[in-house]
């Protein structure tokens, strides 16, 4: 068990992450300060939550690019239309989750029933969602309504740096992130549904013969991804203290990159919550430490790209080595 851990992708991504953190600390002396860590967790929270839904999809050999659009649409509809109806923040979240759930079910039905490529289907729903938001609901930047504004200003705790006097607040939304991570981990590791997700990703026909309900499982993961996207959309607006309809655009690439970086295989059947989160943590740390590292703005994108490739290469080389070792081990076993 121990040996397996040291060979896993998670270990190598974690190693790259740890080295990077130490390098930033040595360069700036600020990395391990309390306020910096709070800032990083905050920046990590939203994409990390998206990672959970996305990794479910990738494990079943699919890919979902519609979640930023679902999140944005649900957020805008709820925040612009429900102001007059209620002042209970919980209802805003529930309504957004419901909208997300509907779009997710559409995704799931088309993909599971007709076996269309997930990328194309979700690309389509993504475009439709942005279209509905812009055309039907006339999206624009919109002030956040009072109940959500209040929620956004509520903090779990604050950390003040004793040297610089700078304070950072931990938003209450972090609780939702922890909850979602736990739910994701629980489903994948402790339920038959989770076994089914891995089995379908490994070999769909075999999974079906083994008694897993492929259609229902696929419906579940897309519905789950959509439903969570709705929740995350509203959460994001509470963190921004404003409704920005185009704010999440483009995040799908970061989230997919983080999953793959963390060892979730695009070929399906493999991946862990820990890996995906480590991948996201690596990307968040890189993205939020470029100024601490004094990297010129012009070169930042080059640096981020290089870290992604290095991170992937380290684990890819390792798994290739493992594959070679495997055959050797089998031979040894026979002799």
């Amino acid at each position: 068990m121990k040996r397996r851990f040291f060979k896993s992708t998670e270990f190598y991504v974690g190693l790259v992450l740890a080295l990077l953190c130490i390098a930033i600390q040595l360069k700036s002396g600020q990395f391990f300060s309390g306020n910096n860590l709070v800032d990083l967790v905050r920046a990590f929270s939203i994409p990390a939550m998206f990672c959970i839904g996305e990794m479910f999809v990738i494990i079943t050999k699919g890919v979902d690019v519609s979640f930023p659009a679902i999140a944005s649409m649900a957020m805008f509809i709820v925040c612009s239309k429900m102001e007059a109806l209620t002042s209970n923040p919980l209802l805003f979240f529930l309504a957004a989750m419901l909208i997300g759930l509907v779009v997710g079910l559409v995704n799931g039905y088309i993909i599971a029933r007709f076996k269309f490529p997930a990328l194309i289907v979700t690309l389509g729903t993504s475009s439709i969602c942005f279209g509905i938001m812009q055309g039907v609901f006339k999206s624009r930047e919109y002030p956040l309504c009072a109940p959500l504004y209040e929620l956004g200003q509520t903090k779990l705790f604050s950390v003040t740096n004793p040297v610089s006097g700078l304070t950072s607040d931990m938003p209450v939304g972090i609780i939702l992130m922890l909850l979602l991570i736990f739910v994701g981990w629980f489903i994948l590791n402790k339920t038959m549904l989770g076994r089914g997700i891995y089995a379908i990703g490994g070999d769909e026909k075999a999974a079906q013969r083994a008694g897993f309900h492929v259609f229902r499982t696929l419906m579940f993961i897309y519905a789950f991804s959509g439903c969570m996207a709705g929740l995350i959309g509203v959460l994001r607006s509470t963190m921004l203290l404003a409704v920005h309809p185009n704010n999440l655009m483009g995040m799908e690439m970061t989230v997919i990159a983080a999953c793959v970086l963390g060892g979730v295989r695009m070929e399906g059947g493999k991946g862990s919550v820990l890996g995906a989160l480590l991948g996201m943590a690596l990307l968040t740390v890189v993205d939020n430490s470029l100024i601490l590292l004094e990297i010129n703005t012009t070169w930042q994108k080059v640096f981020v790209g290089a870290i992604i490739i290095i991170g992937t290469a380290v684990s890819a080389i390792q798994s290739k080595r493992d594959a070679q070792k495997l055959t050797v081990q089998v031979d040894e076993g026979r002799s």
Partner: protein
Amino acid sequence: MKLKNKLVTAVLGALLCVTVAGCGGGGEQAASNDSAEHVVETTDVATQGAKKDWKIAVVVKDSSNGWFARMEQGVKQYAADTGINAYQKGPVSTDAAQQVQVIQDVINQDINALCVVPVDPAAVDPVLQEARNKGIVVITHEGSTCKNSDYDLEAFNNAGYGAFIMDKLQESMGGQGTYTTMVAHLTNASQNEWANGAVAEQEAKYPGLHLLDNPKRVESENNSEKAYQVAKEVLKSHPEVTGFVGTSSMDTPGIARAINELGLKGKVFVVGTGMPNECRSLIQDGSLSYITLWDPAEAGYAMCVMARMILEGKTIENGTNLGLKSYENLVVSKDNPHLFMGAGWIAINKDNVDKYNF
């Protein structure tokens, strides 16, 4: 054919009803519905003229948008100030095809001048040609690439706007300290011209301020969360920074949130482009010193003044005074003799933020 025209009129009529209903029920402050509210400061020049029976139509991008509701207040004030029949129309959503229909509709209403804020300059060009063939004077705003307009009026030139942001920032910073600049993307032309204008103004006028050495310019990717994160990082690694120039309307509130949370209110200042409704609470709590923008009401009024001048045979040239504070000394563009720019920037702080509802 006739039937089709009737249909179009009916549809447009229905759309306008929806628009009016939409504006009324938008939950906006009641004060803004007063038809001849005094929103723009003018001099006699703006209201003078020989004739009063001109008819001027202003067609905007989107009649449901707060920005253009504010512009309409300017147009209504012009009508009230001069007795000229000036009015504003626009499609219910920002849609180039619908806007063309609205323009077609108004040029059949015996207007003398047409002022347009085009959704897509290329898409409206043919219908503007039609208007000019009928002898209608055509003025565009934010449409310098339109070929078929008599003049294009812009609120300001880019370097001048940047300099204005810097003037306000140095005032907030008390004339000394280190600052840096933020743009959405390093590749964005106008925002970088604003930032360059700000830096040039500081170098020329304010020796007490210094531009941070590295990074001189940071990117927000037009995302206020990114702006917030980047501002925090700059303040962590460069505690000497006490000022930010924000250019995109996402930069300014993002930086202000960072200042507020870090506990640096009153020590670090940000000035930049922003929308009053979105930034109101940040301005009121002191995290955001000034937001800068141009006033759409003034731009609407100025277009009408310009239209009347042309109708009365006056020529628009370098230095022309439209009788509004921001447009009393028009500057002609070096590249385009039909493009005139005002100095139409305004700064909004605690004291006047409640005057603006968009």
